[in-house]
C-alpha cells in the first residue's frame, strides 16, 4: 500500500504544544541567586516590620476532615532588630473572648510570655510551655517570636519546586548563644516574592517537629508579598491548624502600655 499522505498527528500535536510552551513560558532572565546569609538577612529584615496589627482566623482540626473549631484573633506586634513583642487576643467565639498572651524576646535571650484567661487568671509561661501550641493549636508560642533567619548559621541546601515555584532551600541552625528548641529549620523560599512557601522545623532527633505550608500569598497594606493563609502540622500528629490573616495594618502606633500585662486584660482595636 502506497503512502498517499504523510500523516503524523502526534508530531502535529507535539509541535503545537511546543509552540504553546514557548508562548506561555517566555525566557526568564537569569537572576543572581543571593547567598544564604544575604537571603536570610532579607527575610529577617522583612520580619522586623515595626508596628503592625493583623486579624487572624485560626481553624483547628483534630484530623484532616474532622470538625473544625474556629477562633478569630487580633494580633498586635512590634518587631525591631533588637526585640520582638507580640500580643494575641481571642475576639471570637464569645466563650473564649479575651483569652490572650503576650510574648517578648530581646536579642538572643530566651523568649518570655504571659497568658491571660478571663476573668482574672494570669500566668507566666515556662520555657517548656513555650513549645506548647497557642490556644490549643499546632502553632507553638516560640514559633511566633523565633527569628531563625537571624541565626548565625545559614546555608543553601539546594532548590525544590513547591506549588510550581522553584524555591531556594535555606537551612538555618541556631548558634551557640541562640536559644531554640529546634535543632535546625529548613525554609523553601520563593526568591521572587521573598516569601517562604514551606518551613520545616526539626527536633534534635532529626524528626520534623513542625511543618508550615503557605497556601496563599497576598499583598499587605504596604504592597509587599506576605503569606496570608497557611497550615501547620506537627510531626507524628494528625491535627491540622489553618491560619488566615487579613486586614494587616502598618499605619498603627503602639505605646509600651499596649504590650504590658495589663493590655492582656482588655481588647482595644489597634489605632
Amino acid at each position, binding site marked *: 500500500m502506497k503512502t498517499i499522505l504523510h*500523516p503524523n498527528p502526534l508530531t502535529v500535536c507535539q509541535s503545537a504544544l511546543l509552540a504553546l510552551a514557548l508562548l506561555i513560558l517566555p525566557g526568564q532572565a537569569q537572576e543572581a541567586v543571593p547567598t544564604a546569609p544575604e537571603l536570610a538577612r532579607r527575610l529577617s529584615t522583612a520580619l522586623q516590620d515595626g508596628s503592625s496589627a493583623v486579624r487572624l482566623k485560626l481553624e483547628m482540626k483534630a484530623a484532616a476532615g474532622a470538625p473544625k473549631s474556629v477562633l478569630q484573633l487580633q494580633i498586635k506586634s512590634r518587631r525591631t532588630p533588637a526585640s520582638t513583642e507580640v500580643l494575641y487576643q481571642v475576639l471570637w467565639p464569645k466563650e473564649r473572648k479575651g483569652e490572650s498572651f503576650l510574648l517578648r524576646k530581646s536579642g538572643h535571650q530566651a523568649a518570655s510570655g504571659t497568658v491571660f484567661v478571663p476573668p482574672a487568671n494570669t500566668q507566666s509561661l515556662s520555657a517548656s510551655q513555650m513549645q506548647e501550641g497557642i490556644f490549643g493549636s499546632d502553632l507553638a508560642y516560640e514559633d511566633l517570636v523565633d527569628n531563625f533567619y537571624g541565626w548565625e548559621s545559614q546555608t543553601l541546601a539546594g532548590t525544590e519546586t513547591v506549588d510550581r515555584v522553584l524555591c531556594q532551600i535555606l537551612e538555618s541552625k541556631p548558634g551557640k548563644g541562640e536559644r531554640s528548641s529546634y535543632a535546625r529549620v529548613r525554609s523553601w523560599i520563593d526568591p521572587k516574592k521573598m516569601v517562604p512557601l514551606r518551613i520545616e522545623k526539626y527536633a534534635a532527633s532529626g524528626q520534623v517537629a513542625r511543618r508550615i505550608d503557605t497556601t496563599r500569598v497576598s499583598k499587605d497594606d504596604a504592597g509587599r508579598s506576605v503569606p496570608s493563609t497557611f497550615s501547620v502540622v506537627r510531626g507524628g500528629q494528625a491535627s491540622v491548624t489553618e491560619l488566615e490573616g487579613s486586614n494587616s495594618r502598618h499605619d498603627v502606633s503602639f505605646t509600651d502600655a499596649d504590650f504590658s500585662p495589663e493590655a492582656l486584660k482588655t481588647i482595644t482595636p489597634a489605632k
Partner: protein
Amino acid sequence: MTFFTVIVRGLIRRPVRTGLTLVGISIGIAAVVALVGMAWGYEKSIGKQLDVIGIDVVVSNMSGGLMPKVFDDSLQANIKPLPQVADTTSVLMQMLSIEDAPMMMVSGREWGGFTWDKLKVLEGRMPKDGTEEVVVLGRLAAEVLKKKVGDTVQIEATELPVVGIVDGQAVVENGAILLSLPVLQAVTGNEGKVNFIDIRITPGTTKDQVAALCAQIKGIFPEGRAMVASEVVGTSQGFRVARAMSWSTSLLAIVVGVLGVMNTMLMTVFERTHEIGILLAVGWKRRRIVAMVLWESALLGLLGGLLGVSLGALGLKLLETTPAVHGLLEPDLSPKLLLTSIAIAVLVGVVSGLYPGWRSSRLSPSLALHG
C-alpha cells in the same frame, strides 16, 4: 445523498471517537464559560452595585492590600464644594472574617448619605440614627452568617445586634454587613478615617467636566484617585488580573480542544482517502473537499460548544452555591457569554479543520483510489 449528509455520515462513522472529541471540546468550552463567567460576574456585581446606589465618581487610594487604604474623612469637606458635585457621602469598607464565616464585606456608611437610599427593608428596621450600635444584613450575608433579626454579629471585639435584613438589589450589597460609619470606625479603630468618598454629579455634566473634576480631586488628594464609576471596574488591578487569568486558562483549554479536533479530523481524512478519491474522481472540486472537512470540524465544534455551554452553565450554578462564592458575586451567564463560547467552539472547529482540509485537498484521485 446531499453534501450535508456526507458531512454527518463522516462524523457518525466513528461514534466513539466523535463522542470523545465532543467531550474534549465541551470540557474546554465549559472551562471558558465557568472561568469567564466568574470574572464577568465579578465585574458586573461591582458595576451593578455602583449603578444601583447611583454613584458617579469614586474617590479612593487603591495602593496595596485587598481594600483601599484609609484616609482622613475631612477630605469630603474639600470635595463637596467643587463644581459639578451634587452630593457626596463617605464610606469605610473592610473585608473581614466574621465569626466562622468566610471573609465578607463590612460597610460603614455615613448616616443620611445616599448609599442608604436604595436599601429595601425585608425584615426588621434600619438603624435609628448614626450612633446606634447595630447592623443590618444584606439578605445573602444573613444567609451566610445564619443570622436573623434579634441575633448579634460580632465585628472585631464588638457584638452588634442585627436589627434588619435588607435587599440592596445588587449581589455585593446583599452580601454585606451594613452599619453606620461612626460605629464601624469605632469598632475597627479607624476613628475619622474612611476609604471611599462616593460622588453624585449634577445632571447634564459633560465628560470633559467630569474629567476636570477628577483632575481637581487629584490635586487636593494626590495619593488617591477619583474615578468615574464605569471606569472603576475596567481600571482595577484586581479585575484585570481576574480577567487575564480566566482568559489565559480558557486559552489553554481551547488549544487542547483545537489539538483534539485536529487529531480527529486528520484521522478521518486518512481513513477516508479512498472515499475522497472517489469524490474527486466523480468530479468534486478540491475546494469542495476542503469545505466538507471544514464543515465536519465546524459541526463538531458547534456540538461540542452546545454541550460545553450546558456543562459550564451547570458548573457555574453549582459554584454559585458554594460558601466561598455565595453572597460575594453573581456569576455571569449572559447570552453574550453563551453565544461567545459557542462562537469560540465553532471557530475552534474551523481552525482545527484547516490543516486536515489542506491535506485532503492534496490527495491525488488515482493514488487515493489505488490506496
